[in-house]
């Protein structure tokens, strides 16, 4: 946005006293496009879900911009943050996956993709990709695996993680419902696919109520040993 400082004659030497303070509007390479991503790992499945709203400031650019990208038959990545960096990062990951496939004649495993993403992100340590990533998929044993990242590549394997603009609202709810944190005398039942799906829908509906950047529609990718299935559910569009 151009500065409109100093409208009218404002030469300092003219001495009119009309000089507005000079504003230096610096170019920022980043912007925040919103969105929320969630991943839950189960015994033999993994769910990666994201909303589909793309916003910038007070505007909505698109209602159909999902943030889950399929990488392999067993791995899905969700990227939120700055949409430009999300696109470039997923392009780089897909290229590296192809390179790996050609050199090693096998598909990259979920853990290997996570480790590779960490080095890709760190290679831009001093000009980071403004992306919050969550990788969800099945590991070599067929169990669900979720890896969450920060923008410069620190990562960790989890059972469930929320990332993006509504992450601070969703994560405590998941801690309570899936991790049974802060609950006493509760039986720790393992999570079934149906319960996980219902939880994901409820949790995103709640997020859409309270976060302006989350809404429009919810896209869910379910990763099982039979492949990746997708579902779309409508959310609040306001």
């Amino acid at each position, binding site marked *: 946005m151009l500065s409109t400082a100093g409208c009218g004659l404002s030469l300092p030497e003219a001495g009119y006293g009309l000089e507005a303070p000079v504003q*230096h509007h*610096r*170019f*920022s*390479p*980043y912007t925040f496009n919103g969105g929320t991503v969630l991943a839950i790992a189960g015994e033999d499945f993994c769910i990666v879900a994201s909303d589909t709203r793309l916003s910038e400031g007070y505007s909505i650019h698109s209602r159909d911009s999902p943030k889950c990208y399929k990488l392999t038959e067993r791995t899905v990545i969700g990227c939120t*943050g700055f949409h430009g960096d999300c696109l470039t990062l997923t392009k780089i990951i897909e290229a590296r996956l192809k*390179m790996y496939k050609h*050199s090693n004649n096998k598909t990259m495993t979920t853990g290997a993709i996570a480790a590779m993403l*960490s*080095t890709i*992100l*760190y*290679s*831009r*340590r*001093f*000009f*980071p990709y*403004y992306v*919050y990533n969550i990788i969800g998929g099945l590991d070599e044993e067929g169990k669900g695996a979720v890896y*969450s990242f*920060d*923008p*410069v*590549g*620190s*990562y*960790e394997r*989890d059972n469930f993680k929320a990332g993006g603009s509504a992450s*601070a609202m969703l994560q405590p709810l998941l801690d309570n419902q899936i991790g049974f944190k802060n609950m006493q005398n509760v039986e720790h039942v393992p999570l079934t696919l149906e319960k996980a799906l219902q939880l994901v829908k409820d949790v995103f509906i709640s997020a859409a109520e309270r976060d302006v950047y989350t809404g429009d529609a919810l896209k869910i990718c379910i990763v099982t040993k039979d492949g990746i299935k997708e579902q779309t559910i409508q959310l609040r569009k306001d």
Partner: protein
Amino acid sequence: MPSTKMAPAPFSLPASPLINMATATSGTTSVRFAHAPPPFRAVCALPLTKMAPRPPHRRHFVGAEFPSPQLPGSKMALASVLRAELAEFSPNFPKNFPKNFPKNFPEDFPDDSEGIPEILRDPPGPPRVLAAPPWGFEAEPEGPGLQILHGTTTLAFKTPHGVTVAVDSRATAGSYIASQSVRKVLPIGGRMLGTMAGGAADCAFWQRLVARQCRVQELRNKEPVSVAAASKLLANLVYQYKGLGLSLGTMLCGWDKRGPGLYYVDSEGQRVAGAAFAVGSGSSYAYGVLDRGLAAAARSEEAACELARRAIAQAAHRDAYSGGCVRVMHVGPEGWREVSHHDIAELQEKYLE
């Protein structure tokens, strides 16, 4: 810890062509990197780095590199991690591969860096892949960006049985607790541990690189690398990036032929040996408990581990940015092992009665 001034580096930093910053910036439009980079996960606050003289203009490479003029004293650094796997995909690859590459690769391979094929050698200085945006960058971007406190408490101390290490497990991004289950102790080889404080990605990445270096050294010299050598490798690696905003405060703990070894290395360039350290935002609280019990802890390994656990629990109690669970590890002559893993909430019930 009092900050010590680093003596001039004993090795010669490669001389890169220094462009006069005045002329470089006068030609370009004044676009400055104003927007703070995204808050990333950090494990502890370290003293803010002073603004270093801005580094010379570097081109931003993504992907395969063109071979560069080789200067003596090239250092193993990040570029080799990325370039090694991308080398085959470089457009110049078949032409660049040296003609006098030894036919019997393992036997004839000379041991010094000059014998390494050009394609595998690293260019001098911090690798260009980590370069700044073309308009330059600042170690401390303006705005609320990186001034936020992050938190951790890690400690380690030497006993006659080895080195006892204890860490908490909280990682914060601003005031949001990003994770309560971070592993802040990273194995370096089978006989050494490195603790993590500061930026989580920085610690994880550089320690992994040092682990790789240590492994290569072990294979070359046919004996395990010493703690002093590993800490020197790490210190020299991060010193190349001094002033650029890395945040790393790590303790290297191990057992080598000189007995227990403990070094503190940080991104300011400090590398000190010592008998006991606590690092992080909760370190003062941990020192209070640690110093009082050090003499008694030398009695037995269990006493040492209990002292370490108590010190971390105390720090987690008083420091808002430390918490999660306490992990106690021990490094002895036969290697490292995890001693215990307790949730701090349970420990506090036990200690505060």
